[in-house]
Protein backbone atom coordinates (compact mmCIF):
# COMPACT_ATOMS: atom_id res chain seq x y z
CA UNK A 1 0.00 0.00 0.00
CA UNK A 2 1.59 3.33 -0.98
CA UNK A 3 1.79 6.15 1.54
CA UNK A 4 -1.00 8.68 1.67
CA UNK A 5 0.08 11.94 0.10
CA UNK A 6 0.23 15.10 2.23
CA UNK A 7 -0.91 17.04 -0.84
CA UNK A 8 -4.56 17.42 0.24
CA UNK A 9 -3.65 19.87 3.01
CA UNK A 10 -1.77 22.18 0.63
CA UNK A 11 -4.28 21.59 -2.13
CA UNK A 12 -7.16 22.72 0.10
CA UNK A 13 -5.31 25.98 0.84
CA UNK A 14 -4.47 26.28 -2.87
CA UNK A 15 -8.12 25.86 -3.72
CA UNK A 16 -9.32 28.36 -1.14
CA UNK A 17 -6.75 30.94 -2.25
CA UNK A 18 -7.47 30.31 -5.89
CA UNK A 19 -11.21 30.74 -5.38
CA UNK A 20 -10.81 33.94 -3.32
CA UNK A 21 -8.38 35.47 -5.81
CA UNK A 22 -10.64 34.48 -8.71
CA UNK A 23 -13.64 36.12 -7.02
CA UNK A 24 -12.08 39.37 -5.76
CA UNK A 25 -8.42 39.48 -6.81
CA UNK A 26 -8.65 41.85 -9.77
CA UNK A 27 -10.82 44.31 -7.81
CA UNK A 28 -8.49 44.18 -4.80
CA UNK A 29 -5.56 45.04 -7.08
CA UNK A 30 -7.52 47.87 -8.65
CA UNK A 31 -8.73 49.28 -5.33
CA UNK A 32 -5.50 49.12 -3.35
CA UNK A 33 -3.04 49.63 -6.18
CA UNK A 34 -4.73 52.09 -8.55
CA UNK A 35 -7.80 53.66 -6.92
CA UNK A 36 -5.93 54.26 -3.68
CA UNK A 37 -2.85 56.15 -4.97
CA UNK A 38 -4.88 57.93 -7.67
CA UNK A 39 -7.67 58.93 -5.29
CA UNK A 40 -10.48 57.31 -7.30
CA UNK A 41 -13.72 56.73 -5.35
CA UNK A 42 -12.94 55.18 -1.95
CA UNK A 43 -9.26 55.52 -2.87
CA UNK A 44 -9.22 59.10 -1.64
CA UNK A 45 -10.05 58.10 1.94
CA UNK A 46 -7.96 54.93 1.81
CA UNK A 47 -4.85 56.88 0.85
CA UNK A 48 -4.97 58.71 4.19
CA UNK A 49 -3.70 57.13 7.41
CA UNK A 50 -6.95 57.96 9.21
CA UNK A 51 -9.13 56.46 6.48
CA UNK A 52 -7.11 53.27 6.13
CA UNK A 53 -6.79 52.77 9.91
CA UNK A 54 -10.51 53.24 10.42
CA UNK A 55 -11.20 50.33 8.08
CA UNK A 56 -8.42 48.09 9.38
CA UNK A 57 -9.60 48.56 12.97
CA UNK A 58 -12.81 46.66 12.26
CA UNK A 59 -12.71 42.89 12.83
CA UNK A 60 -14.47 41.91 9.57
CA UNK A 61 -11.96 43.97 7.56
CA UNK A 62 -9.09 42.37 9.48
CA UNK A 63 -10.41 38.89 8.75
CA UNK A 64 -10.92 39.71 5.08
CA UNK A 65 -7.48 41.25 4.62
CA UNK A 66 -5.86 38.36 6.50
CA UNK A 67 -7.64 35.90 4.23
CA UNK A 68 -6.53 37.78 1.13
CA UNK A 69 -2.86 38.01 2.13
CA UNK A 70 -2.58 34.51 3.56
CA UNK A 71 -4.68 32.51 1.11
CA UNK A 72 -3.22 34.31 -1.92
CA UNK A 73 0.25 33.37 -0.67
CA UNK A 74 -0.69 29.71 0.00
CA UNK A 75 -2.36 29.45 -3.41
CA UNK A 76 0.69 30.90 -5.16
CA UNK A 77 3.09 28.76 -3.12
CA UNK A 78 1.42 25.50 -4.14
CA UNK A 79 1.23 26.46 -7.79
CA UNK A 80 4.82 27.71 -7.95
CA UNK A 81 6.11 24.61 -6.15
CA UNK A 82 4.47 22.42 -8.79
CA UNK A 83 5.65 24.66 -11.64
CA UNK A 84 9.22 24.00 -10.49
CA UNK A 85 8.40 20.31 -10.98
CA UNK A 86 6.85 21.10 -14.39
CA UNK A 87 10.14 22.59 -15.52
CA UNK A 88 11.77 19.24 -14.82
CA UNK A 89 13.39 20.14 -11.50
CA UNK A 90 12.76 17.84 -8.55
CA UNK A 91 11.57 20.37 -5.94
CA UNK A 92 13.48 19.99 -2.67
CA UNK A 93 13.86 21.83 0.62
CA UNK A 94 14.92 25.09 -1.06
CA UNK A 95 11.87 25.10 -3.31
CA UNK A 96 9.65 24.31 -0.32
CA UNK A 97 11.13 27.18 1.69
CA UNK A 98 10.86 29.71 -1.13
CA UNK A 99 7.25 28.75 -1.76
CA UNK A 100 5.49 27.46 1.35
CA UNK A 101 8.01 29.05 3.69
CA UNK A 102 7.19 32.52 2.33
CA UNK A 103 3.47 31.76 2.66
CA UNK A 104 3.94 30.72 6.28
CA UNK A 105 6.05 33.80 7.05
CA UNK A 106 3.61 36.09 5.26
CA UNK A 107 0.72 34.61 7.21
CA UNK A 108 2.46 35.28 10.52
CA UNK A 109 3.51 38.82 9.57
CA UNK A 110 -0.06 39.59 8.43
CA UNK A 111 -1.38 38.33 11.76
CA UNK A 112 0.99 40.56 13.70
CA UNK A 113 0.47 43.64 11.50
CA UNK A 114 -3.32 43.43 11.62
CA UNK A 115 -3.24 42.96 15.38
CA UNK A 116 -0.82 45.87 15.81
CA UNK A 117 -3.11 48.12 13.77
CA UNK A 118 -5.39 48.20 16.79
CA UNK A 119 -9.11 47.78 17.33
Amino acid sequence: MSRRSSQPFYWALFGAGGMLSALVGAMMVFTTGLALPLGIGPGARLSTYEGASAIVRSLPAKLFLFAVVSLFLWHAAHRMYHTVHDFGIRPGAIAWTCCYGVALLGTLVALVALFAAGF
Partner: protein
Amino acid sequence: MPEPRTIVLAVLRYDGANDVAPRFESFEVPFTDDMSVLQGLQYVKDHLDGTLTFRWSCRMAICGSCGMMVGGVPRLACRSFLRDFLPGPLTVEPLTHFPIERDLVVEIDDFVGKLGRVKPWIEPRVARALDEGAYRQSPGELDRFESFSHCINCLLCYAACPQYGLDPKFLGPAATALLQRYNLDSRDGGAKERMQAAHSEEGVWGCTAVGYCSEVCPKAVDPANAVNRTKTESAVDWFARFARGDD
Protein backbone atom coordinates in the same frame (compact mmCIF):
# COMPACT_ATOMS: atom_id res chain seq x y z
CA MET B 1 -5.96 10.11 -66.04
CA PRO B 2 -4.81 12.88 -63.62
CA GLU B 3 -1.79 12.10 -61.41
CA PRO B 4 -2.89 10.90 -57.93
CA ARG B 5 -2.25 13.43 -55.19
CA THR B 6 0.55 12.50 -52.83
CA ILE B 7 1.52 13.48 -49.35
CA VAL B 8 4.84 12.94 -47.61
CA LEU B 9 4.72 11.05 -44.32
CA ALA B 10 7.74 11.73 -42.11
CA VAL B 11 7.71 8.69 -39.85
CA LEU B 12 9.88 8.24 -36.77
CA ARG B 13 11.75 4.95 -37.15
CA TYR B 14 13.58 3.01 -34.46
CA ASP B 15 15.03 -0.48 -34.31
CA GLY B 16 16.68 -1.31 -31.00
CA ALA B 17 18.93 -3.88 -32.66
CA ASN B 18 20.51 -1.42 -35.12
CA ASP B 19 19.72 2.15 -34.04
CA VAL B 20 21.22 4.25 -31.27
CA ALA B 21 18.37 6.74 -31.48
CA PRO B 22 15.14 7.21 -33.46
CA ARG B 23 15.33 8.99 -36.83
CA PHE B 24 12.80 10.34 -39.31
CA GLU B 25 12.25 8.63 -42.62
CA SER B 26 10.07 10.13 -45.38
CA PHE B 27 7.64 8.27 -47.59
CA GLU B 28 5.63 9.73 -50.47
CA VAL B 29 2.14 8.26 -50.31
CA PRO B 30 -0.53 8.60 -53.03
CA PHE B 31 -3.92 9.12 -51.45
CA THR B 32 -7.62 9.76 -52.02
CA ASP B 33 -9.88 11.96 -49.91
CA ASP B 34 -11.26 9.04 -47.93
CA MET B 35 -7.90 7.63 -46.82
CA SER B 36 -6.86 7.67 -43.17
CA VAL B 37 -3.34 8.08 -41.83
CA LEU B 38 -3.54 4.38 -40.94
CA GLN B 39 -4.21 3.54 -44.58
CA GLY B 40 -1.25 5.74 -45.49
CA LEU B 41 0.96 3.71 -43.17
CA GLN B 42 -0.44 0.50 -44.62
CA TYR B 43 0.45 1.75 -48.10
CA VAL B 44 4.03 2.33 -46.90
CA LYS B 45 4.20 -1.14 -45.42
CA ASP B 46 2.66 -2.82 -48.45
CA HIS B 47 4.56 -0.97 -51.18
CA LEU B 48 7.52 0.99 -49.86
CA ASP B 49 9.01 -0.55 -46.71
CA GLY B 50 7.70 -3.80 -45.30
CA THR B 51 9.66 -3.32 -42.07
CA LEU B 52 7.52 -0.38 -40.91
CA THR B 53 5.98 -1.53 -37.62
CA PHE B 54 2.75 -0.23 -36.13
CA ARG B 55 -0.28 -1.47 -34.18
CA TRP B 56 -3.76 -1.47 -35.69
CA SER B 57 -6.88 -3.59 -35.76
CA CYS B 58 -10.45 -2.43 -36.18
CA ARG B 59 -9.86 0.62 -38.45
CA MET B 60 -12.91 2.24 -36.87
CA ALA B 61 -11.82 3.90 -33.59
CA ILE B 62 -13.07 1.25 -31.20
CA CYS B 63 -10.14 -1.08 -30.51
CA GLY B 64 -7.72 1.61 -29.36
CA SER B 65 -4.70 0.03 -31.06
CA CYS B 66 -3.55 2.72 -33.50
CA GLY B 67 -2.80 5.59 -31.14
CA MET B 68 0.16 7.68 -32.32
CA MET B 69 1.40 11.28 -32.60
CA VAL B 70 -0.07 12.61 -35.84
CA GLY B 71 1.30 16.06 -36.61
CA GLY B 72 2.52 16.25 -33.01
CA VAL B 73 -0.93 15.58 -31.50
CA PRO B 74 -2.05 12.27 -29.94
CA ARG B 75 -4.59 10.84 -32.35
CA LEU B 76 -5.98 7.54 -33.59
CA ALA B 77 -4.42 6.93 -37.01
CA CYS B 78 -7.62 5.34 -38.32
CA ARG B 79 -9.57 8.46 -37.39
CA SER B 80 -7.16 10.98 -38.89
CA PHE B 81 -7.46 11.75 -42.57
CA LEU B 82 -4.55 12.48 -44.89
CA ARG B 83 -6.55 15.18 -46.69
CA ASP B 84 -6.57 17.24 -43.46
CA PHE B 85 -2.78 17.45 -43.31
CA LEU B 86 -2.04 18.92 -46.73
CA PRO B 87 0.31 20.08 -48.06
CA GLY B 88 2.44 17.99 -45.73
CA PRO B 89 4.89 16.62 -44.81
CA LEU B 90 2.95 14.99 -41.98
CA THR B 91 5.02 13.80 -39.02
CA VAL B 92 3.96 10.46 -37.57
CA GLU B 93 5.58 9.40 -34.30
CA PRO B 94 4.90 6.87 -31.57
CA LEU B 95 2.85 8.08 -28.57
CA THR B 96 4.94 10.40 -26.39
CA HIS B 97 5.73 9.57 -22.75
CA PHE B 98 6.07 5.87 -23.57
CA PRO B 99 9.34 4.03 -24.31
CA ILE B 100 9.61 3.23 -28.01
CA GLU B 101 9.68 -0.51 -28.64
CA ARG B 102 10.03 -0.38 -32.40
CA ASP B 103 8.99 2.31 -34.94
CA LEU B 104 5.45 3.34 -33.96
CA VAL B 105 4.99 0.64 -31.33
CA VAL B 106 5.40 1.72 -27.68
CA GLU B 107 5.81 -0.27 -24.48
CA ILE B 108 2.56 -0.21 -22.53
CA ASP B 109 3.32 -2.70 -19.75
CA ASP B 110 3.19 0.12 -17.18
CA PHE B 111 -0.41 0.96 -18.06
CA VAL B 112 -1.49 -2.67 -18.08
CA GLY B 113 -0.11 -2.98 -14.54
CA LYS B 114 -2.04 0.09 -13.47
CA LEU B 115 -5.29 -1.35 -14.80
CA GLY B 116 -4.98 -4.13 -12.25
CA ARG B 117 -4.27 -1.74 -9.38
CA VAL B 118 -7.63 0.01 -9.67
CA LYS B 119 -9.57 -3.26 -9.25
CA PRO B 120 -11.65 -2.83 -12.43
CA TRP B 121 -14.54 -5.13 -11.54
CA ILE B 122 -17.79 -4.94 -9.59
CA GLU B 123 -17.29 -5.59 -5.88
CA PRO B 124 -20.98 -6.16 -5.04
CA ARG B 125 -22.26 -3.59 -2.59
CA VAL B 126 -24.75 -6.17 -1.30
CA ALA B 127 -24.21 -9.91 -1.72
CA ARG B 128 -26.58 -11.21 -4.37
CA ALA B 129 -27.63 -14.75 -5.23
CA LEU B 130 -28.01 -15.87 -8.83
CA ASP B 131 -31.69 -16.66 -8.44
CA GLU B 132 -32.34 -13.06 -7.40
CA GLY B 133 -31.97 -12.22 -11.07
CA ALA B 134 -30.26 -9.30 -12.80
CA TYR B 135 -29.44 -5.98 -11.13
CA ARG B 136 -31.77 -3.11 -11.92
CA GLN B 137 -30.21 0.22 -12.77
CA SER B 138 -32.02 3.39 -13.70
CA PRO B 139 -30.91 5.65 -16.57
CA GLY B 140 -29.89 8.22 -13.97
CA GLU B 141 -27.70 5.69 -12.17
CA LEU B 142 -26.12 4.66 -15.48
CA ASP B 143 -25.47 8.28 -16.42
CA ARG B 144 -23.31 8.74 -13.32
CA PHE B 145 -20.54 6.53 -14.70
CA GLU B 146 -21.36 5.89 -18.34
CA SER B 147 -18.82 8.18 -20.00
CA PHE B 148 -16.04 6.59 -17.94
CA SER B 149 -17.05 3.17 -19.26
CA HIS B 150 -16.39 4.26 -22.85
CA CYS B 151 -12.61 4.13 -22.50
CA ILE B 152 -10.96 2.04 -25.23
CA ASN B 153 -7.51 2.08 -23.58
CA CYS B 154 -6.00 3.86 -26.57
CA LEU B 155 -3.56 5.72 -24.27
CA LEU B 156 -3.85 9.04 -26.12
CA CYS B 157 -4.53 10.60 -22.70
CA TYR B 158 -1.21 9.33 -21.32
CA ALA B 159 0.56 10.76 -24.36
CA ALA B 160 -1.22 14.05 -23.64
CA CYS B 161 -0.38 14.10 -19.93
CA PRO B 162 2.90 15.90 -19.17
CA GLN B 163 2.76 14.79 -15.53
CA TYR B 164 2.85 11.17 -16.69
CA GLY B 165 5.74 12.07 -18.97
CA LEU B 166 7.61 13.71 -16.10
CA ASP B 167 6.85 10.88 -13.66
CA PRO B 168 5.58 7.57 -15.06
CA LYS B 169 4.65 6.40 -11.57
CA PHE B 170 1.57 8.65 -11.82
CA LEU B 171 -1.61 6.54 -12.05
CA GLY B 172 -2.81 8.66 -14.94
CA PRO B 173 -6.07 9.56 -16.71
CA ALA B 174 -7.46 6.30 -18.13
CA ALA B 175 -6.73 4.20 -15.03
CA THR B 176 -8.45 6.79 -12.83
CA ALA B 177 -11.42 7.02 -15.19
CA LEU B 178 -11.76 3.26 -14.85
CA LEU B 179 -11.49 3.58 -11.07
CA GLN B 180 -14.39 6.02 -11.06
CA ARG B 181 -16.37 3.90 -13.54
CA TYR B 182 -16.61 1.27 -10.83
CA ASN B 183 -16.84 3.61 -7.82
CA LEU B 184 -19.83 5.36 -9.36
CA ASP B 185 -21.63 2.17 -10.43
CA SER B 186 -24.68 1.66 -8.22
CA ARG B 187 -23.96 -2.08 -8.03
CA ASP B 188 -20.48 -1.54 -6.61
CA GLY B 189 -19.29 -1.25 -3.02
CA GLY B 190 -15.52 -1.29 -3.51
CA ALA B 191 -14.80 2.45 -3.46
CA LYS B 192 -12.93 2.40 -0.15
CA GLU B 193 -10.51 -0.26 -1.40
CA ARG B 194 -10.04 1.44 -4.76
CA MET B 195 -9.28 4.77 -3.14
CA GLN B 196 -6.12 3.20 -1.64
CA ALA B 197 -4.70 3.39 -5.15
CA ALA B 198 -5.72 7.05 -5.38
CA HIS B 199 -4.50 8.58 -2.12
CA SER B 200 -0.77 8.54 -2.78
CA GLU B 201 1.50 10.81 -4.79
CA GLU B 202 1.48 8.08 -7.46
CA GLY B 203 -2.31 8.05 -7.26
CA VAL B 204 -4.16 11.15 -8.31
CA TRP B 205 -1.91 13.70 -6.63
CA GLY B 206 0.48 13.87 -9.54
CA CYS B 207 -2.20 15.69 -11.53
CA THR B 208 -2.02 19.47 -11.98
CA ALA B 209 -5.20 19.82 -14.01
CA VAL B 210 -3.57 20.44 -17.37
CA GLY B 211 -6.72 19.02 -18.95
CA TYR B 212 -5.17 17.99 -22.27
CA CYS B 213 -6.13 14.36 -21.64
CA SER B 214 -9.83 15.14 -22.02
CA GLU B 215 -9.08 17.24 -25.12
CA VAL B 216 -7.50 14.35 -27.02
CA CYS B 217 -9.78 11.54 -25.87
CA PRO B 218 -11.54 10.08 -28.95
CA LYS B 219 -14.42 8.75 -26.86
CA ALA B 220 -15.26 11.83 -24.76
CA VAL B 221 -14.51 9.90 -21.57
CA ASP B 222 -13.39 13.12 -19.83
CA PRO B 223 -10.61 11.53 -17.75
CA ALA B 224 -9.60 14.97 -16.40
CA ASN B 225 -12.96 15.04 -14.67
CA ALA B 226 -12.39 11.56 -13.22
CA VAL B 227 -8.94 12.47 -11.87
CA ASN B 228 -9.91 15.85 -10.43
CA ARG B 229 -13.11 14.58 -8.82
CA THR B 230 -11.00 11.84 -7.27
CA LYS B 231 -8.64 14.53 -5.95
CA THR B 232 -11.57 16.25 -4.26
CA GLU B 233 -12.74 12.91 -2.80
CA SER B 234 -9.25 12.08 -1.65
CA ALA B 235 -8.84 15.53 -0.07
CA VAL B 236 -12.18 15.33 1.75
CA ASP B 237 -11.20 11.88 3.01
CA TRP B 238 -7.80 13.21 4.13
CA PHE B 239 -9.56 15.65 6.47
CA ALA B 240 -12.47 13.35 7.36
CA ARG B 241 -10.24 10.56 8.67
CA PHE B 242 -9.37 12.72 11.69
CA ALA B 243 -13.05 12.90 12.50
CA ARG B 244 -13.35 9.17 11.97
CA GLY B 245 -10.32 8.57 14.17
CA ASP B 246 -8.53 6.13 11.86
CA ASP B 247 -5.17 6.06 9.95
